[in-house]
């Protein structure tokens, strides 16, 4: 019985050892090769002292090493924490300290980026590097990834974990503060994988191209569904959208998951999508924001035999809804209905079920509801709450996830996204907290006011606009503020425009009036 993440890999390796599991450039690994390397790596992690439940960060770009690390940390009984490779040292530092990371798997080049913060992570005791490096500015021990992977397996140890144990922490942003770690158990990750495999009909004959980062739940699910079903996963590092198109052809890809930005890039004329036919491409999925209708039109025309699934999910509940492809003509703007084995409720302010047409909060019930935010019981209690409609005798039995997304249902039960309850921004698939950007703006030392909003953007979903008020006597320049942000924030968090105001609009209670700022922008 498979109840831990690495069991899925072991089962696939037993069933079809020679089957191609993982492809990246020239590297091609079969399931038995992947499984063997994962055992070696897991053994290595144990040998350097990793204890059940301890967190290990993976700070790598899309690579074979990144995939192996996820399964090896699971097999060693640890908790894997994928860190987006675009993050700057300060954000990585936050993640490492927030989850009291014990070990970190990375490359020498990425380690160099972290050189100035490494000694500020007291919990960090070991590094595993994918290549040899000289002069490592680290007080703990350093180990070689490759030697671990190729080490001879000693006796197989019996892990103590069960499916309820913590498997992964995925960092994501909310409307305020620094990124928070969403905790997922083995059972939750595997339920997400089974559910998505079911409605996408993923089988071992599929060849899935992974373009989304594994630090993002939908990205990680590409790896999980592929390994659970014994399919092939193809990894890619791309800059030009046409590289994705070429890979679809070269590797005869059958499934591709993207976010709106990926689809916008791919539907540009220079991506060459329109010049080819994709007989192998069975399905594509969109998540992380609504697909612009114009882009959807281009894709439907260029991919006439490919099924298009519009999906919706939030990390706190992993995956929530999808629109079956046959509904695309009738309801192209719908986010669909609940995924299998999941119930989606639309709940109004009074805690009652909304009738069709009435906007309310999307509340998710099912096996993929996460364990909440690492080290944040109060925040968790706001998002994961007792089921509002169960009889009181049952209520403590399970938690449902309050998404913060306002939606409505039509008469047939299909859902439509209306907006956020809070000020969270979503840009190119990333969740961005306005306060995190505002905090960096304040660090410039030139401001007495700063407020950041998301402005609708054809390609990004939203882009960031900052409104700032200068301190008395400070001469402000928009360009230098954007520069300052670029030094401290990854690219997706940098404001595209900065507008200097004499004062920020305030509510009667003295808080920044974000709706007024949005109205100022005409929406």
């Amino acid at each position, binding site marked *: 019985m498979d109840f831990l993440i690495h069991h899925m890999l072991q089962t696939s390796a037993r069933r079809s050892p020679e089957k191609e599991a993982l492809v990246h450039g020239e590297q091609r690994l079969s399931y038995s090769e992947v499984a063997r390397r994962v055992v070696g790596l897991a053994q290595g992690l144990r040998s350097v002292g990793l204890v059940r439940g301890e967190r290990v960060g993976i700070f790598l770009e899309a690579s074979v090493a990144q995939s192996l690390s996820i399964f090896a940390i699971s097999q060693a009984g640890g908790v894997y924490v994928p860190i987006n*490779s*675009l993050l700057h040292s300060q954000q990585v530092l936050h993640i490492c300290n927030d989850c009291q990371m014990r070990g970190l798997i990375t490359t020498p*080049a990425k380690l160099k*980026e972290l050189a100035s913060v490494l000694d500020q992570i007291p919990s960090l005791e070991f590094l595993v590097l994918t290549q040899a490096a000289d002069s490592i500015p680290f007080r703990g021990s350093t180990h070689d990834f490759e030697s671990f992977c190729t080490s001879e397996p000693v006796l197989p140890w019996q892990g103590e974990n069960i499916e309820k144990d913590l498997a992964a922490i995925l960092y994501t942003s909310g409307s305020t503060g620094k990124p928070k770690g969403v905790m997922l158990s083995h059972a939750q990750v595997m339920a997400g994988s089974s559910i998505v495999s079911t409605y996408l009909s993923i089988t071992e004959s599929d060849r899935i191209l992974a373009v989304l980062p594994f630090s993002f739940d939908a990205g990680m699910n590409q790896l999980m569904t592929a390994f659970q079903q014994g399919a092939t996963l193809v990894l890619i590092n*791309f*800059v*030009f*959208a*046409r*590289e994705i198109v070429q890979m679809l052809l070269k590797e005869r890809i059958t499934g591709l998951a993207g976010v709106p*930005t990926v689809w916008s*890039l791919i539907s*540009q004329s*220079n991506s*060459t999508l329109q*010049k080819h036919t994709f007989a192998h491409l069975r399905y594509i999925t969109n998540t992380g924001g609504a697909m612009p209708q114009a882009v959807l039109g281009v894709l439907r025309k260029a991919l006439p035999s490919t099924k298009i699934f519009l999906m919706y999910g939030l990390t706190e509940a992993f995956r929530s809804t999808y629109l079956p492809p046959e509904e695309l003509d009738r309801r192209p703007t719908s986010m669909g209905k609940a995924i299998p084995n999941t119930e989606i409720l639309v709940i109004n302010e009074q805690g009652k079920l909304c009738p069709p047409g009435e906007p309310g909060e999307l509340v998710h019930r099912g096996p993929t509801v996460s364990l909440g935010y690492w080290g944040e019981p109060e925040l968790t209690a706001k998002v994961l709450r007792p089921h509002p409609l169960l009889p009181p005798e049952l209520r403590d039995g399970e938690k449902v996830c309050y998404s913060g997304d306002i939606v409505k249902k039509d008469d047939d039960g299909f859902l439509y996204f209306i907006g956020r309850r809070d000020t969270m921004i979503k840009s*190119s698939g990333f969740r961005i907290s306005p306060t995190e950007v505002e905090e960096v703006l304040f660090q410039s030392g030139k401001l007495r006011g700063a407020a950041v909003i998301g402005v609708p953007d054809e*390609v*990004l979903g939203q882009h960031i606009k900052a409104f700032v008020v200068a301190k008395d006597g400070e001469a402000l320049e928009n360009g230098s503020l*954007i*520069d300052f*942000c*670029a*030094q401290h924030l*990854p*690219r997706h968090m*940098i404001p595209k425009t900065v507008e200097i105001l004499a004062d920020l609009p305030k509510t009667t209670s003295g808080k920044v009036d974000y709706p007024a700022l949005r109205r100022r922008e005409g929406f």
Partner: protein
Amino acid sequence: MDESTNDQIRRFILEKFPSARQRALQDSDSLLQNGLIDSMGILEVVEFLESAFDLQFSDDELLPENFDSILRLTAFVEEKRSRRSA
């Protein structure tokens, strides 16, 4: 005197991608490694080159090897221009 192709490209890159300035980017440094310019950024670079140098790129010229550094970009643009004037 006109600003050289190289200077124009460098000025654009440094202006548009502040982290390039922060890292004191050299003309030969990779733009595509370490996420300095991502797939969104590359669209802006293409747009800039086409309008600033009055060029039209065909699909098969949009390759990482033509875009990986300020030097390569300069060489690519100058080659395109010389082919046009020839």
